[in-house]
């Protein structure tokens, strides 16, 4: 069974190599590779026992002298993120079919390379391995965004890159500190969990980690790289960033922050949660008046991620489970949104809301699927977004009522800006520009249908997903609370 995990991690790498060498057929090769990966991921889900244990564990000595092992495994929490990655990557590749990128082999190879990095992040049980994956996922996306991006891409991406890496370097600092504290001198996650750090140490570690994760997610006020980067990146890059990459930050908090420094979370978690909630309201309000649809969605993503982050720091089952399912849902929804915007902009060469309108008349299929995606995003019950937001809000609510009230504003504000955007793009009269719009077909249609199907299926029957992570989440929370009570 453990070979399955190795296959899962390294198959994309192989795929990337083959893709890079396959010239014009690159996209097909990449798609095949991604689908096979998805197959493996599904096989893994089938073989996964939904309890709190870590399964499919591989543990090889890697750099023995530094206590670094290739130690990876999967529990319910990882399973969700693996699923997310492997479901979205084929969609993103398929979504890129409509473009003819220059040197597309490099483009698709980078996507697959990034997939490997992401999977390492999501399965690593060794902090060093985690860090390697963390950075390995960053380089490809930097190149994807900076080579194939918009006209302001160089400056914007440099900022994105340096900003992110600033965070991760501080995380590295924290990791080294933990390593030195660890009497066994290794990076094993379990050893980190077992450390007994005092509150001050935990506070410092908390911030070193939190800033790294907060930048990645991003949480207010570390978010300013994000709207520009999303706007300038090519569609696939935006989807990767928003759909999967920011989950690295969330996953990091769950896996590497909460259980390692519970006292730090106890002391500083409220700051994190308040920042998250500020981010929700702040980003939502900013989204109201955005003129560029991509930027609007970017800000909406900050709001949504703020809620996820707040739910995690609430430290209860509901919030955590909400975060789990919302990671998946947000990934699907935001990929959907960006894909719709990409379809629009690749046809009309603009994403300015004021220039659009009346597309629904020209492209009913696009309009309906876009509506479903928007509904998922605004968390209409019956769509995937609701499950997540409901659980998150109830989680935050149990932490603090007023925070929940402010966080809850997202369901109002989300409706305001999302429907405003939808209305101005899709509804109303067609104008000279949009009259030329043709409805989606082929690969576009497949992607949209899959996304809509996922939105509804997850919304109506989320139980399998929730079950997948429930035991692990419970275990995690027990672990944290136990550690806290044993300290106090």
């Amino acid at each position: 069974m453990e070979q399955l995990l190795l296959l899962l991690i390294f198959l994309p790498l192989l795929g990337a190599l083959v893709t890079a060498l396959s010239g014009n057929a690159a996209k097909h090769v990449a798609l095949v590779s991604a689908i096979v990966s998805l197959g493996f991921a599904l096989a893994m889900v089938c073989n996964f026992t939904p309890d709190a244990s870590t399964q499919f564990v591989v543990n090889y000595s890697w750099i023995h002298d530094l206590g670094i092992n290739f130690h990876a495994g999967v529990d319910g929490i990882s399973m969700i993120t693996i699923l997310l990655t492997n479901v979205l990557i084929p969609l993103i590749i398929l979504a890129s079919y409509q473009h003819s990128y220059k040197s597309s082999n490099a483009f698709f190879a980078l996507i697959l390379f990034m997939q490997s990095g992401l999977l390492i992040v999501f399965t690593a049980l060794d902090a060093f391995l985690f860090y390697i994956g963390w950075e390995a996922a960053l380089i490809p996306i930097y190149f994807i965004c900076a080579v194939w991006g918009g006209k302001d891409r160089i400056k914007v991406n440099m900022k994105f890159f340096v900003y992110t890496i600033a965070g991760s370097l501080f995380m590295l600092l924290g990791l080294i500190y933990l390593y030195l504290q660890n009497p066994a001198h290794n990076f094993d996650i379990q050893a980190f969990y077992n450390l007994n750090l005092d509150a001050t140490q935990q506070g410092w570690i908390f911030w070193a980690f939190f800033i790294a994760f907060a930048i990645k997610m991003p949480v207010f006020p570390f978010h300013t790289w994000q709207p520009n980067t999303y706007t300038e990146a090519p569609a696939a890059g935006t989807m990767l960033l928003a759909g999967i990459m920011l989950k690295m930050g969330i996953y990091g908090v769950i896996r590497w922050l909460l259980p390692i420094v519970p006292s730090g979370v106890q002391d500083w978690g409220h700051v994190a949660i308040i920042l998250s909630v500020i981010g929700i309201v702040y980003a939502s309000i900013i989204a109201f008046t955005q003129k560029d649809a991509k930027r609007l969605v970017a800000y909406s993503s900050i709001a949504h991620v703020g809620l996820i982050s707040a739910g995690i720091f609430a430290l209860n089952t509901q919030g955590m489970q909400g975060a789990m399912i919302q990671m998946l849902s947000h990934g699907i929804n935001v990929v959907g949104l960006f894909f719709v915007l990409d379809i629009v902009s690749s046809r009309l060469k603009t994403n300015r809301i004021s220039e659009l309108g009346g597309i629904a008349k020209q492209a009913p299929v696009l309009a309906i699927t876009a509506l479903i995606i928007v509904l998922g995003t605004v968390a209409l019950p019956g769509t995937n977004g609701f499950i997540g937001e409901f659980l998150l809000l109830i989680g935050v609510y149990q932490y603090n009522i007023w925070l929940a009230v402010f966080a809850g504003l997202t369901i109002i504000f989300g409706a305001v800006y999302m429907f405003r955007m939808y209305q101005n793009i899709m509804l109303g009269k067609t104008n000279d520009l949009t009259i030329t719009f043709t409805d989606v077909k082929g690969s576009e249609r497949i992607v949209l249908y899959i996304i809509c199907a996922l939105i509804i299926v997850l919304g109506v029957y989320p139980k399998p997903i929730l079950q997948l992570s429930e035991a692990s989440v419970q275990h995690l929370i027990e672990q944290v609370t136990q550690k806290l009570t044993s300290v106090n």
Partner: protein
Amino acid sequence: MNIIITITVTALVVLYAGLFKAKKALLPITLIGLLISLAFVATSWNTNQTYFGMMQMDNFALAFSGITILGTLFVFLLTQNYFAADSENIAEYFTLILFALAGIIIMVSYKNMSMLFIGIEIMSVCLYILAGIRKSNFASNEASLKYFLMGAFSTGFLLFGITLIYGATGSFDLETINQYLVGNYKSISPMFYPGVILMLIGLSFKVGAAPFHFWTPDVYEGAPTLITTFMSTVVKTAGFAAFLRLFADTFAPLHDFWLPPLVAIVCITLFIGNVTALFQKNFKRMLAYSSISHAGYLLFSLVTLSANSSNNVLVYAAAYTFASIIAFAVLIMVKQKTGNDHFDSFNGLAKRNPLTALVLTIAMLSLAGIPLTAGFIGKYLMFLNVMGEYQILLVAFAILNALVGFYYYFKVIVAMYFKEGNEIELEVPLQYKAVLIFSVVITLFLGVYPAVILNLI
């Protein structure tokens, strides 16, 4: 000993071969000589021989010898078509480089201050000359004279330091000095302390640490690129080996004394190196500043003395050497095509030369310290080492500087991939190909599986 003899003899043979106009034979002879000395390095591994009480060929010395010889080998491979255009005195250049290498071998294996001095001076004198071999080139002249004047000046301080230490201990032998320190820990002669500081200054000059770094950018820029390659890789590595031998072993008992000035030097070096590099328009000059900043990281190994210090320097130096060689090799090719070494010359390079661009990218990632390249492992070891003593603020400062580093290392990547430019197509000679491939393989291999090198010394 065999190593020095081989190198010196090779140098002499080359010199004579030059006399007899056997130009074609020069490179093969040199390479064979270097390979033989590499073989000697390999065979004397773990033997730990001492020669005349003056040289100690322990694994430390051998490892650094290996790296410097390998680096020199690569530099020689890069000489293809390089000197031919300017001069017919190739044999002399080769000889001087080999002499410098001999000095370097002495520097990494000395056991006596006199050897250190002789080694440093052999190397320096050769470099003074080598920096100026473009005789009609004003920049080369300037580099040479600047290097010479400042080098001679700093030698004075180094000697004064040696003298004071001699005055305090009555010996030039490192072991004796060390025993003196251990034995009279409470009553060390007051002359010893300024001696240590003056030696610190002298060696800081040689490795280009601030505020004694001023020669570095000018000389690196003015000297012929190939010589710059040699200086910034092999010479720098040797400087650190010398530094380490003295401070990590001999002066180790006085660690508390020389630590604060060292930390100050580290901080200034990191700051000046990184921040000044940021604004450079010239790739070569940027690499010069980057080499200053790397000197800062390398000095980290002395901040915390541990069993791993020297090995950490080895790893870092290896990472830095091979990445720099790639950078300079590509720079040489670009300069031959475009005539200048500005960042603009790299614009759009990736379009016509995807593989070269990829290799240079990996080199830059390694210099910047991105995981899965050797540079990351090097930086990581340095940070780890210093964090061991919980000098967290220092590491945090270094991390901030590393961050600045990403900016300027990525400038060339940005130029190659994202900017439109004159679509030059580089001609990559076979030997360059070999150097690039070897270096990149080493860079990646050390990045992915550094275990091979971690416990070398």
